[in-house]
């Protein structure tokens, strides 16, 4: 493996222009998500999904403000944040993929191979962030590749390239972590103690994200899980228990298997999004 590459998304300089969303779709030739007015601030694409690999969240916050107006709760903070696949160190999607369609690249990123994915959908509930998703029309799973093809050609990912304010930074993960620590320190020095990093620590529940963030509020505010844990964390111990129990219940399992196979998979097929 060459150096592990990553994204550092500094939301404190995001201007919500959505150039990342558009550049991602242009480069990866993703379909649109339909034309629906969501009436949720300036966000009309909702969330990450099979055809939205970068998604900008808009959070309008009301706080007591100095104003000569009526004080009806004007917004004084408009948080914007471009979300993306976290490319986890311990990636559950990859762990559960039965076909090997999901793999760890030489850049340390996690990529789905579209010609191998069979659409089983195991990866969808496995992701602790709710990132990976299946497309309704072809059933396969899709997500951010951190522009694997561009990286192979020596280019930075399309979203980072398009970002006008360098809110999205791409580079060797170690270097990004240093840069993020510096940025955090300077924001704290400016008197912005609410600034925090999210997903940068190798000690967190996913072993550290390959795409991490600087946030200005609690992760939940941005729709991010506060303490994500790789969903396959307990698999080894589960397998030990399963092994011990296996002999005694083998007959029962065989009966259940023959009777419930097709129905068991049907539930996954509803996983697609609008």
């Amino acid at each position, binding site marked *: 493996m060459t150096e592990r590459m990553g994204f550092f998304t500094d939301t404190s300089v995001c*201007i919500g*222009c959505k150039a990342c969303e*558009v550049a991602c779709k242009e480069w990866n030739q993703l379909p649109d998500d339909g*034309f629906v007015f969501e009436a949720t601030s300036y966000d009309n694409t909702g969330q990450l999904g099979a055809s939205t690999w970068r998604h900008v969240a808009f959070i309008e916050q009301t706080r007591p403000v*100095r104003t*000569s107006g009526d004080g*009806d709760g*004007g*917004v004084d903070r*408009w948080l914007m944040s471009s979300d993306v696949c976290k490319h986890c160190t311990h990636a559950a999607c990859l762990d559960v993929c039965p076909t090997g369609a999901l793999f760890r690249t030489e850049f340390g990123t996690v990529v789905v191979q579209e010609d191998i994915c069979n659409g089983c959908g195991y990866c969808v509930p496995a992701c602790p962030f709710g990132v990976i998703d299946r497309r309704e029309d072809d059933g396969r799973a899709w997500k951010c590749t951190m522009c694997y093809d561009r990286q192979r050609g020596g280019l930075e990912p399309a979203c980072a390239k398009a970002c006008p304010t360098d809110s999205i930074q791409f580079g060797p993960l170690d270097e990004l972590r240093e840069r993020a620590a510096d940025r955090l320190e300077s924001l704290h020095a400016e008197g912005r103690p609410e600034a925090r990093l999210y997903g940068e620590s190798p000690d967190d529940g996913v072993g550290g994200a390959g795409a991490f963030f600087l946030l200005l509020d609690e992760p939940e505010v941005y729709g991010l899980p506060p303490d994500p844990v790789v969903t396959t964390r307990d698999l080894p111990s589960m397998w030990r228990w399963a092994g011990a129990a296996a002999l005694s219940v083998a007959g029962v399992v065989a009966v259940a298997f023959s009777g419930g196979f097709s129905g068991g998979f049907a539930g996954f097929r509803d996983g697609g999004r609008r």
Partner: protein
Amino acid sequence: MAECHPVGFQWVVEARARGAKVFHVDPRFTRTSALADRHLPIRAGSDIVLLGALVNHVLGNELDFREYVLAYTNAATLVSEDFQDTEDLDGLFSGFDPETCSYDPKSWSYEGPAEHAPGETLEGGLHHAAAAGADRYGSSGAAAHPSPPTDPTLRHPRCVYQILRRHFARYTPQLVEQLCGISPEDFAELADAITANSGRERTTAWVYSVGWTQHTVGAQYIRTAAILQLLLGNIGRPGGGILALRGHASIQGSTDIPTLFNILPGYLAMPHAHRHTGLDDYLAREGGDTGFWGNRRSYLVSLLKAWWGEAATEENDFCFDHLPRLTGDHGHYTTVMGQIDGTVKGYFVVGENPAVGSSGGRAQRLGLANLGWLVVRDLTLVETATFWQDGPELETGEMRTEDIATEVFFLPAASHVEKEGTFTNTQRLLQWREKALDPPGDCRSDLWFYYHLGRILRERLTGDEIDRPLRELTWDYPEDGEHREPSAAAVLREINGVGPDGRALSSPTQLRPDGSTTCGCWIYCGVYAGEVNQAARRRPGREQTPVAPEWGWAWPANRRILYNRASADPEGRPWSERKAYVWWDAERGEWTGHDVPDFERNKPPDYVPPEGARAEAALSGTDPFVMQSDGKGWLYVPAGLADGPLPAHYEPHESPVRNPLYGQQANPARRTYPRAVSPYNPPRSPRFPYVLTTYRLTEHHTAGAMSRPLAYLAELQPELFCEVSPLLAAELGLANGDWATIVTSRTVIEARVLVTGRVRPLRIQGETVHQIGLPYHWGWGGGGLVTGDVTNDLLPLVLDPNVYIQESKAMTCDVRPGRRPRGRAMLDLLEEYRHD
């Protein structure tokens, strides 16, 4: 700025990272506010109160950069005894004629004998105003006395400094609170920040866009900022300035090489049919003889030589009579009225979509429907080309396709990646772009279209005298490829101009009045210096100085900051080490520095012009504003503006608020079109109680023809919406995501509701004033994947008298929950509103 110029906003983000403090003044909390240190919500249409109060704060506390102000502005200049201020005349300046609603600027002039006043000042303002005269001074100044009497102590009651003090004395923080809705505490924070951040060591910049220009007092908004920046010494210095963000790529270019009716390339005035009998007469009346405009004969003769070549000779006034002539106002909205009246028969619409993009869409479409022929060139089949088969007037029954006789020609256009040429950005920077791919099908570049149209017209000319101007035109460019695409580089070289040896010139100072040089636009002279396309230079910033002189090419003469002589003190030394930019090198006897000096290279700071000197020689070594006839930055404008020598706060044409400053409610010189086709909401009408402002979103471009057909943009903002505060939503029963109907005297439209605390009600004169925001990117067609009602149909046809820009940033409206009525019922609702 983050909303509409996100790429440029990266530099604001970078400045902020280096410690700059950013204030954002806007009626709404926008994406720009999100990254600013402080957002000041303001009532749309009240900015002169805020800026005027800042001027008053600076003057009242003597916080001006006195050395700069004394040396480089007209603060000390004495004004004529005849001048009367708005303070004397309850909101009017002297010289107002209520019959024509225009000013005679004679009484505004500097003190001095009347016979020395320039012809234009003596002639009065009506002709001037009728042809949007002020617009011609885009980069320059009108003529004024070159060396008027002054009082350097600034104590004389008629010196500009004292006139300013009296004029702005009532622009107080309390007035700001009353009219803008900005608290005295917030005002103080802004005032302290900009004054503390100006002077020798520091500079402050103001950045604006059409939020300042699209008002009936738009030009005066910018003027107020100019006064403030001159007082604080923030012009001609790095980090200072008033930065206009243009609304489209190369809009700067389209005023430099104009698509405007009243100017020729390089801001030379378009001749008038009745005022200018010949070349000498024209040159005598347009502009002063001192400063660089004193060379205008060289600029104009070189232009005429570029256009008519060998045919232009000294004997025939260099074909001056071949130029078209004005007879008055031929601006956009007057042209539309001419269409409705049947006096305008044909119309070229190129890269514009007036049926959706201009104010008062109904009047626009009625005009289009009354034409003989219409040519539309665009990337997509825009609404202007299809109004006759699917316009909103068909639904209401006001128009029937079979009654519309207009013959419409739609010609598909090549996009910017399908043709070569330059963009000129707001910084006057010309950047060459290559063609990336051939245009598809029948799409062609504008250059191709006009070149071949001209060629074909010329083939059909007769020997008749009336055809002579077209027959004698130089019209020979190298062609390339199967479609015979003319060479854009050859056009740029023609614009640059050549000398007697046929070689490309390198500077406007080489232009001659005798016909020995050619130049298509004098300010662009040098863009092809050394026979090299200087606009195509792309040396990366990291390989050169921070000024980056080898990236593209900036007019004039590749100067990146205009009037940069002002970055040095009168003796020619930098005001401070920190702000050093250009300075006088006494040993070598020349100006030098980081940028190309915007000054004669060898004119020493102690140069005193001899008696009778003209052009640039008439300016002293301490006159940085080299385009002005007196070389000074004008705090007070003795000539050149249609609505007064100083800015005064007037309410928008449609406002729910009384102007407490003067009896004069709105700009007395504003241009109106009082016609039944597009009536106005009465001022302070209870039927139209809300302030309406319109704007653009990051996700779309103008009327949407370039963004609504693109799925990746259309999905990001799929529908027209109106932004309302939670308080107003509760009052009117508007539900988030539901529909609202917006009404003005012009029309009724519907939009989805976005309830947001980013729009705040303001306390104005003790009353709650609600503002409603509407983006304007939607129309019924234009190849859009998403469509919607036309916001601009709501707008009144009322203009700034200087530049004829419509007031689209502040008007009044009513809002109702639910969708609008359809067909005839919509007209009935409109009638109710008009007559109630």
